């Protein structure tokens, strides 16, 4: 599991961020002593560093340069400073990305994933999801049940994966749309309905026509 080092001076954000990232399957390393951070990093070999700029003592900019010398891990600046000059400075000092607070959780996770993928230490994603008789291969985009298999489109795959991760729970339409929203593709309610119908059709092909239940006014459930 990729190890993420969190350098942030606000205790509430520090704790919540660590919790969030651990739930997402990352190992976290929370810095609480703000002296000699590069040495702490060198000891722990993180795969990624989340770095705040406004820190007690040394600021994030100079720290970034020092961290760059100490460890090969990519650095994402996470800061409330949003002047254009700050971003340019951060990126020129070797930062890999620059996220401004307040960020939304999905955006933060997506950017972390992207930077990890670029640096070649992305999480080994569980390729195979299972729920009851359903098996979903995320890399091949194929869902199978009882020997029969069918290929899914990107959206169908995302919807099914989201439902399978929360097997038994009700997943609201808004949550599904949230999961489907990507950088360039903006899914709306109609698109979700269309994809849901298609996905059900495909599931029917492999003998599971009623796998996804509609819970009126609440969402969907697998």
């Amino acid at each position, binding site marked *: 599991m990729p190890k993420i080092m969190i350098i942030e001076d606000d205790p509430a954000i520090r704790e919540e961020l660590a919790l969030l990232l651990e739930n997402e399957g990352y190992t976290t390393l929370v810095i609480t002593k703000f002296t000699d951070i590069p040495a702490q990093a060198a000891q722990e070999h993180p795969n990624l560093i989340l770095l705040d700029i406004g820190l007690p003592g040394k600021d994030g900019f100079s720290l970034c340069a020092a961290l760059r010398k100490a460890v090969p891990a990519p650095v994402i600046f996470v800061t409330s*400073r949003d002047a254009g000059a700050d971003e340019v400075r951060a990126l020129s000092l070797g930062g890999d990305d620059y996220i*401004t607070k307040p960020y939304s959780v999905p955006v933060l996770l997506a950017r972390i994933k992207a930077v990890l993928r670029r640096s070649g230490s992305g999480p080994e994603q569980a390729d195979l999801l299972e729920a009851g008789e359903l098996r979903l291969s995320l890399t091949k985009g194929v869902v199978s049940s009882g020997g029969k298999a069918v290929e899914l489109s990107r959206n169908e795959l995302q919807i099914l994966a989201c439902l399978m991760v929360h097997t038994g729970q009700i997943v609201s339409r808004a949550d599904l749309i949230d999961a489907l929203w990507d950088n360039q593709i903006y899914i709306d309610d109609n698109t979700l309905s269309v994809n849901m119908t298609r996905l059900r059709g495909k599931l029917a092909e492999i003998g599971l026509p009623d796998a996804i239940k509609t819970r009126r006014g609440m969402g969907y459930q697998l």
Partner: protein
Amino acid sequence: MTLREFLSNRLKCIALQVICVGLATLFLFTTGTQPGVLVILLIVFLLVFLTVNMLDFFQQRARLLELKSILDGLDRKYLFTECVPQPKGLFEQRLFDLVRLAGRDMTGAVSDAQASQREYREYVERWVHEIKTPLTAARLICRELDGGTRRKLIAELSQIEAHVERALFYARAENPEQDCLFRQIELEEIVVRAIENHRSLLIQNCIQVETEGLDCIVYTDEKWAVFILGQLLQNAARYRGEAPVITISAHALGKQVRLTVSDNGIGIPAHELPRVFDRGFTGSSGRSRGGSTGMGLYLCRKLSGFLGLGLEIASKEGKQTTVTLTFPAKENLTKL
């Protein structure tokens, strides 16, 4: 200063000169001077007076023109008295001393006001950065709540963030040159950022977003452009209609790039349209729906001015609103 103005100003003096000449002539005539000599004397007198007056006129006019050109060349006009050449003549000197004293007092007052405005702006910026920390923490904590409550809270947090963001840009708009960072950027990057920033708002309101032809290069400040676009998205979401759709499209117009943000919302009544960019103006829809600040479009127009962006709005009540942003050509940016 025209000759007529000069003469009418000098009227008393000239009248006095004429009276003196008349009296002298009368005196000489009664004491027996020959009329021929008198006529010559009279012509000489008049010539001397005319020359002296005309010389005065040209001198004064030259002096005034010189002062005017110094004033025109000054960036801060109130520093005029500090820059003028040494005045000639005692009266002008004293006058200048007085004006200079007044000017100095004003310079002091202006620089005090500027300092306090700068301090206030710095405070607002620091405050905005500080408030973002607990907002971020609140967003992270929200994650632990169940669906409905979480979404409602995140929507409220987004509202707070939007207000905070407007306050920050309001403060920045006072000294735009400190923040503007023009560079070449893909229009798509700006649009994606703006949409990303308003992700929860758009999803919450089931808004369909369509983008088209955004692979244009523009020269602008990314942060400001994202902010302006964000205000437009917020408006489109706030004043949405049934089955809301926002279409963001762009096309090149010579060397300029024109970006249109169009929605199928409730629109703006024609008689309110000319005032939507006014500070604090909330239209009838803004008042009936509540929560309108009348600052969004005002800030858009102000910031567009600094970025050299063309900003136009058109609307059909009950049907749609279209805002057009025209990004300037690179060559035109140097004069900003």
